[in-house]
């Protein structure tokens, strides 16, 4: 008992011990915040470091010390009210803070304009995302023990990579779309053996590179391009549809894509190619004529009509709305009924509008103002133009032409060449062929040949420290992991990059940022799988639809040049009961939802104003913390400025009492 009393006297009942605790807390905070390498060594984020047991222990000891010392040594008298108030405030604040960090959830979500977000992403916890290619099946598995700051190559087998959540992953939490078969990857793929995933490597800042190789053991086909550079040295490139990220390539204005199809569907694609453009003409006394237009080619429609395609504009801005539509300009010659007429007509894809222009020999399309006629010159003739690219053969990545290289069966290789100006031409490359590619500004004929056995693998390339950018590193987008995928005796390592906002949009079933790389084909599976490192998705407390996003400039500012005066997101919020409301969040102006339990705030922006990034957080115990703060500050003011006055008054009173006493006592003595 005496030992305990001594211990108690020198610790909990001792101001110096309390001071030592304060100093220790200060040192802990300073190290955690100032010497980043310490917490990175323990793979802790700042939030985790300041929520770890040593600080909690120090805080607990400090609270006990505070209570004991206050109770034993500070009498609860008017001059001491301030100190009591401060100490009570500090304990309230510590309790509030512990409560806050215990229940705090913090994340962000990206919402494109006019789309709805269902999930938000935790700010720190990562997850393994998986999807079945070309089907709306997305699954996610949280990886709370995944490291964050160091590089852990698979061969090191670091103990930091031994968390239970990183090994033998078989079940996934389903996201968005539906799967009738449950939550195991093996079931999605129609495999009878389980598929397991092990996270075996992690890199804090790296790129994932793809390798496309010839491998006799694989049955995937591809197309090899032997590229001769104008400077002499050449190279080889294999495109393969086995992985979407290996299927496409762009050279200057030329897009290339490999596709592997069943022999039966080759004819369908051929048909789709030749009938992409359809022009139909009707006039009184004329049968409906449909044909494929080609620039410069004249078609006789009969009844004295002939049309020649003069120009094609893939993106004609509609007057007023500026909507971009495909437009054809044709030279029309009509001999009957007399008089013979010759004029230009412009028609728009999928619209029946007929716009005629008077011929002016000095000009060619596009036309000068004034020649445009209010009413059609020949109201009898009705031309309609349709464009239908059912097989996605036209350029889509900003190029002006595209070669779709089609493999089918064991031998066939077709080149379907499409361009907006000339429609489609088809060549058989089964025995090899050549296409012109623009390389270093020069047109070079490139050999194209079929490759029967292609395997696609990937590897991680860690970025050297000097090339790491702080902001990019902090965002988490440069993280990469290596996953070992196994099924029965088969297994393969897959390097996967990070997608910050990996969940699919509910409407399109595609993520805003398309997943890249990370594909794996398990033998016997009905479809390839794609894997991605991402963040843990959490359901939003309300559905958020972005109605409008604005960047507000200062006077004289333009485009994406900052600084900006403000970022403003107009959100439609649909709560659990289905009730909708519209609210605006901008810098410093969060939206308080559900009586202030959640806030939505402006957390990022897109210079092109296509999307916004909204921060989402709950606010557990904020009231308690504010209460503690108010007590501390009012206590401080009391102790510093009211207490001296009280003491002065007490002294004066005591003095007066003493004087009175001595006066009353005087006659006696």
């Amino acid at each position, binding site marked *: 008992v005496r030992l305990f009393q001594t211990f108690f006297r020198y610790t909990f009942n001792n101001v110096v011990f309390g001071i030592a605790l304060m100093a220790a807390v*200060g040192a802990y905070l300073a190290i*955690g915040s100032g010497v980043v390498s310490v917490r990175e060594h323990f793979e802790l984020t700042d939030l985790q470091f300041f929520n770890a047991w040593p600080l909690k222990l120090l805080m607990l000891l400090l609270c006990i010390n505070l209570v004991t010392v206050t109770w034993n040594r500070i009498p609860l008298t008017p001059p001491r009210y301030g100190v009591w108030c401060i100490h009570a405030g500090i304990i309230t604040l510590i309790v509030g803070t512990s409560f806050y960090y215990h229940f705090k959830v913090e994340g962000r979500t990206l919402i494109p304009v006019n789309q709805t977000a269902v999930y938000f992403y935790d700010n720190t916890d990562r997850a393994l995302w998986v999807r079945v290619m070309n089907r709306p099946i997305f699954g996610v598995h949280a990886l709370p023990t995944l490291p964050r700051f160091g590089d852990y190559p698979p061969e090191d087998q670091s103990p930091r990579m031994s968390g239970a959540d990183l090994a033998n992953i078989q079940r996934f939490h389903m996201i968005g779309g539906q799967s009738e078969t449950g939550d195991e990857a093996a079931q999605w793929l129609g495999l009878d053996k389980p598929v397991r995933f092990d996270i075996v490597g992690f890199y804090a800042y790296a790129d994932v590179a793809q390798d496309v190789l010839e491998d006799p053991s694989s049955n995937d086909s591809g197309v090899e391009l032997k590229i001769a550079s104008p400077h002499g040295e050449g190279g080889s490139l294999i495109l393969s549809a086995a992985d979407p990220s290996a299927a496409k390539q762009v050279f200057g204005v030329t897009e290339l894509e490999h596709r592997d199809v069943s022999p039966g569907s080759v004819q369908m694609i051929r048909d789709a190619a030749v009938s992409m453009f359809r022009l139909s003409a009707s006039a009184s006394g004329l049968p409906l004529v449909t044909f494929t237009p080609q620039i410069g080619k004249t078609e006789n429609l009969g009844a004295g009509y002939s049309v020649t395609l003069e120009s094609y504009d893939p993106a004609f801005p509609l007057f007023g709305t500026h909507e971009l539509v495909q437009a054809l300009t044709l030279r029309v010659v009509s001999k009957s009924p007399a008089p013979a007429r010759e004029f230009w007509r412009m028609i728009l894809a999928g619209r029946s509008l007929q716009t005629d222009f008077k011929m002016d020999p000095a000009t060619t399309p596009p036309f000068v103002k004034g020649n445009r006629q209010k009413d059609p010159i020949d109201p009898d003739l009705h031309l309609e133009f349709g464009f239908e690219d059912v097989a996605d053969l036209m350029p889509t990545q900003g190029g002006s032409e595209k070669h779709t290289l089609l493999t089918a069966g064991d031998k066939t290789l077709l080149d379907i060449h499409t361009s907006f100006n000339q429609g489609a031409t088809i060549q058989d490359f089964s025995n090899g062929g050549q296409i012109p590619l623009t390389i270093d500004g020069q047109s070079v004929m490139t050999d194209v040949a079929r490759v029967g056995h292609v395997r696609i693998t990937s590897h991680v390339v860690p970025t050297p420290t000097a090339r790491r950018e702080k902001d990019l590193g902090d965002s988490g987008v440069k993280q990469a992991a290596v996953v070992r995928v196994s099924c029965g005796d088969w297994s393969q390592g897959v390097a996967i990059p990070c997608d910050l906002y990996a969940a699919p949009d509910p409407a399109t079933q595609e993520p805003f940022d398309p997943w890249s790389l990370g594909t794996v084909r398990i033998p016997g599976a009905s479809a390839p799988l794609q894997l991605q490192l991402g963040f843990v998705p959490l359901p939003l407390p309300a559905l958020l639809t972005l109605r409008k996003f604005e960047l507000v400039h200062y*006077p*004289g500012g333009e485009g994406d040049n900052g600084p900006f005066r*403000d970022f403003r997101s107009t959100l439609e919020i649909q709560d659990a009961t289905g009730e909708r409301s519209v609210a605006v969040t901008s810098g*410093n102006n969060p939206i308080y939802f559900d009586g202030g339990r959640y806030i939505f705030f402006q957390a990022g922006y897109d210079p092109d104003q296509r999307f916004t990034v909204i921060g989402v957080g709950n606010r557990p115990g904020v009231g308690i913390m504010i209460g503690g703060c108010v007590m501390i500050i009012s206590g401080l003011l009391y102790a510093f400025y009211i207490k001296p006055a009280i003491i002065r008054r007490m002294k004066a009173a005591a003095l007066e009492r003493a004087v009175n006493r001595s006066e009353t006592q005087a006659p006696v003595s």
Partner: protein
Amino acid sequence: MKISAILISILLLALPAAALADDSSDAWADQLDLSPLRTIALQNNQTIKTLDTFARQALDQIAGRTSIDGHDSLYVLLDMSFRPDRWVHRNIIKITNVPLRQEFQLLDSIDDTEKQRILHEGTVSLVFLEQQDVLDLLRDVQSRSVAKSKAIDQIMMARDAMSLICVKDAGLIPAAIVPPGTNNPDDVKWHELHDLFGNVPELVDVIKKTGSAPPDAVPGYADKVPLLSSIFAASGGLLDGWDKEDAQKINRSAQTLADVLPQVNPEVYPSHAKREVEVVYNRLMKLTIPGAAFYVVAFVMFAMAARSGLAGLRKWALRLMIVGFAIHTTGIGIRWWLVGDIFPPIKNEFESVMFSAWFGALIGLILEIRWPRGVFGAAASFVGALALVAIFAAPYVTGTQIGGEIAPVQGILMSYWLYIHVTMVTTAYALIAMGFVLSAWWLIRYYATPKDQRALAGAAPDGRLSLAALDTCNLVVLQLAFWVLGAGIILGAIWADQSWGRPWGWDPKETFALVTWLVYLIVVHVRVATPNKGWWTAVLGCFGFFVMLFNWIGVNFLLVGLHSYA
């Protein structure tokens, strides 16, 4: 459209003068009076400023200084614009990053002497930075190192700034000097002269004669054609005068420009007084050094007064400090007026230090008048002087801008919570700095006093300051710092809750503010726990100051966080 055609037409408008000067020296420049041009307003970087300010900023960005060959920045700017040939080959673009200078050793197209020169002087020419092999080299460096990449961005910005002045519209003032034509709220863009060729019929005619298509007229200036004509004529006169080195003509044209430009839109154009004040404000180093000078003298006199107990000396020190404080106040007031915002200007390091020192000085003055000992005055004027010298010197010493130039900031910094939070925290910092002065003073006195007399330090013989009195003064300041800092941190948390979605996120700045606060929390407690209160208070007062200094300055440079602007 060829720029030469335009220039010829401008010369036609200007009615060329007769004499052709072929004196190649710059003696004629001595007769120049560019003062009317200094105060013309323009829009640049989303800010309305004077041409004088713009020229100084541009030259500082390009060459890292504000005068060349003894000519001031406005002359250099105009000479670059009117006679670019004299400048494009000169080595005036400054590379401050020394490791980057070394990269040029790899270049084949320059000899060793040149390589050594670049290494030592760190300057290159505009033409050099447009060479293909140089660009290739820089691109390669950029892909290797993020740190050097930032340095390259900086010299590329300097290059672009210079080529805009030297090459783009050689012959015209290279800035948006014509205010918008209407007072429509959407019409806020100022225009450069070359935007407005299509608005002046005489110019349109000349352009048509050269066979080019004239540009479209910018809307909003329909009733301002005569004004625009005379602006172009004056601008042409300026160019012509420069070409012929005719100072009289330049002076006349400059005066005309300065007279006519405001008439284009008098409601939008800043007042003459405001523009004049801006020029003077810049000339006087933003009133930092003038204020600091008075504070320094006041500090010395206060310290001597406290040491000697001479009341007369203290009185004079107080007067000087009040003058310094008045200059300091004027500096803040002018800046507030120039920024033209209803909120006080405390949005970057320059402004926050300026404000912090001001609050410190104000509190010091009040305390000094209430308790006339010379102690508070000395501490406050020392802090005031140090702060003002620091913000003046920081860009030259560190090579980074701290916000001395008026420019817009990210809108997130526009919140009343910000003003309260920053004001309180920076005030606390100023008080901590004052506490440091008093603590250091106490420690020096303590160790200078023989051991056996320290105990008697409570007595104050011959009116001189005693250790105990100094300790009391120190405690007053530190207590003030302690609760103001606490309140500032809490208000910051309230702002963060709104702006970043959480009140406390362990950002380095907020964590170290808390550590600083803990130091003063310990100060309060050592006074009840130890017998040698004064010593502990003084030691911790010094220690806390360094923690605060690390937080204010060190964190910005060493640790990156959300507070990197403060």
